[in-house]
């Protein structure tokens, strides 16, 4: 077991969900409007991909620059070329393969020490589930209005 990882820095106080949820909603809905205006109606798949990118962008902007995962998401989005390369790890993991899989799933996970990875994962999950909740809410709301 690797004992080199330094003691974790105290985690940032979590933003309250209320204001973040609202910010996320404003950002994402605005992005949706933009996608709607700028994507031709014929290219539904393209529109779907743009909506997905808007989802991750909204999440990342709302989380702000203080999170490594959000910075990684924005870097990825701003590079048009879809590079799958993961940054080389600096420290060996303390929980073997499980942490490896997690590093691949959390944006920016490759370069983090184990402690930071766990903190970032928790924040990433919270933001992801908030995004999913928002999107589901929009789908439900839009479905109920109908043509």
């Amino acid at each position, binding site marked *: 077991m690797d004992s080199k990882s330094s003691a974790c820095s105290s985690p940032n106080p979590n933003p309250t969900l209320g204001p973040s949820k609202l910010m996320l909603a404003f950002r994402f809905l605005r992005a949706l409007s933009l996608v709607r205006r700028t994507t031709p109606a014929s290219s539904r798949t393209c529109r779907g991909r743009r909506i997905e990118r808007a989802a991750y962008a909204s999440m990342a902007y709302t989380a702000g620059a203080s999170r490594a995962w959000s910075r990684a998401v924005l870097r990825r989005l701003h590079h048009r070329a879809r590079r799958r390369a993961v940054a080389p790890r600096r420290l060996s993991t303390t929980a073997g393969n499980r942490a490896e899989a997690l590093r691949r799933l959390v944006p920016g996970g490759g370069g983090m020490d184990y402690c930071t990875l766990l*903190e970032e994962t928790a924040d990433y999950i919270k933001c992801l589930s908030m995004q999913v909740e928002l999107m589901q809410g929009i789908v439900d709301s*839009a479905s109920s209005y109908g043509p």
Partner: protein
Amino acid sequence: MSSRRSRISEEEITELISKLQSLLPETRRRGASRASAAKVLKETCNYIKSLHREVDDLSGRLSELMATMDVDSAQAEIVRSLFRS
């Protein structure tokens, strides 16, 4: 867990793992007792993957709805419900 690791680090990691466990849907449903780090990490990976799939799926549905839905009304409705909650 290895006793060679410093106690402070080990406690913090245990705490972080525990915090992760509390975020998992399984825990919310069944109120599980503390699981091993390996299990929590595995469940966390599965959860993140399922969330990614949901974003993908919902993006597709929003794209389809976009043609027909009244975006402004949906927007207003969402914002209203968020202010209420």
